């Protein structure tokens, strides 16, 4: 008995289970044109797979992961399914809500008062493309400045000349247009 069209297409693409495959193989043994079609289909797929990659690492894969992780942390947590959503607040929880909000405001005020000293910022994801280099990011509100410390960078040769694009204009060095003192760039030392 001739196989149906859908089974034949699945057979051509090697998608049948073993029993159906054997059944159509037996039928096809007397059908050279169908055997030729299957060989041709296999050759076509093999050529495509040899030429067009099925798996490719994205450029800068570490940065890919770091950026994705930061994006996920910056947004709210993944939503729960509907049947697992938290139950609505009961009356006693509602009664405590104003006191909880007031306590949170007071705690927030004291926390902002205490955050005066310089310390590393933990929420940032810092990506260093060079292997072995570690970066730390510091932010100081009183100094109104930020510093990035790179550990593990190769020594800068003595004959390295800082290109124009990275130098400051001597005439305006340290003085802004309105006469006030502007922040100065840090100096690289070996």
């Amino acid at each position, binding site marked *: 008995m001739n196989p149906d069209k859908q089974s034949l297409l699945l057979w051509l693409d090697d998608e049948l289970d073993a029993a159906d495959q054997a059944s159509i193989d037996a039928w096809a043994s007397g059908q050279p044109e169908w055997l030729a079609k299957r060989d041709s289909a296999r050759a*076509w797929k093999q050529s495509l797979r040899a030429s067009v990659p099925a798996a490719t690492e994205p450029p800068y894969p570490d940065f890919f992961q770091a950026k994705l992780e930061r994006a*996920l942390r910056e947004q709210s947590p993944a939503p729960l399914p509907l049947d697992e959503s938290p139950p609505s607040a009961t009356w006693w929880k509602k009664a405590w809500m104003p006191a909880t909000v007031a306590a949170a405001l007071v705690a927030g005020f004291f926390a902002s008062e205490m955050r005066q000293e310089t310390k590393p910022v933990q929420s940032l994801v810092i990506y260093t493309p060079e292997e072995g280099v570690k970066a730390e990011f510091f932010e100081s509100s009183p100094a109104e400045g930020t510093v990035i410390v790179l550990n593990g960078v190769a020594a800068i040769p003595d004959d390295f000349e800082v*290109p124009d694009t990275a130098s400051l204009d001597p005439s305006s060095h340290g003085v802004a247009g309105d006469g006030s003192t502007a922040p100065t760039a840090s100096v690289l030392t070996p």
Partner: protein
Amino acid sequence: MNKFLHRASYILLGPQIVDPPAHGSAGDEPEGPEDFVLVSRAQAGDMRAYDSVVLRHRNRIFAMIRNMTHNDADAWDLSQEVFIKAWNALANFEAKAKFSTWLYRIAHNVVYDWNRRRKHDAAGELNDEILENDRIDPSAIAIPHVGESPDDHMALGELRKKIDMALAKISPEHREIVILKDVQGLSYKEIADILGCTMGTVMSRLFYARQRLQTLLKDEYESR
């Protein structure tokens, strides 16, 4: 007979003796018990587990999108979008289907939206000047990555170049179905699930896509 002629005749005409491909698979597909455990932990909010899930799937998702968009930068951004959307919808994933099939479905939707936006914004033009090498400071430590230059493209294998060109000429719907079936190695059933249509539709669409692609490759050959 040059290399292309040989390979084209191999594709189009010749029943050659070849090793059959793996049953419905393009090889190193990261599906299995380990994947299932990682996805379950990620569903419980474990971001480290999700990081591992991304590591296991990103190369196939990126390749699929790269083959659709023919652009590294767009594929990079769209792949990020896929994994962000997957994280946000993770609670809705049920282990009835393979996780990779579910991811491909998200990738399909993301690329579909991108194609629609691109058609809408087609009036805008890329400012090529910002990518010209002579406008970049020669002392700069890093230079912008602009993907394959035409020269680099010429250096690619002859057949790869022809297939890339032919893929670019067919419709996005046909291109996607050829990539999912013949490059990624998915089954008809998986593709039907991803595209949200019947297996019959997938079979019919794939038939016309292959026919169109093979005709284009034949034209390339005859024009030489």
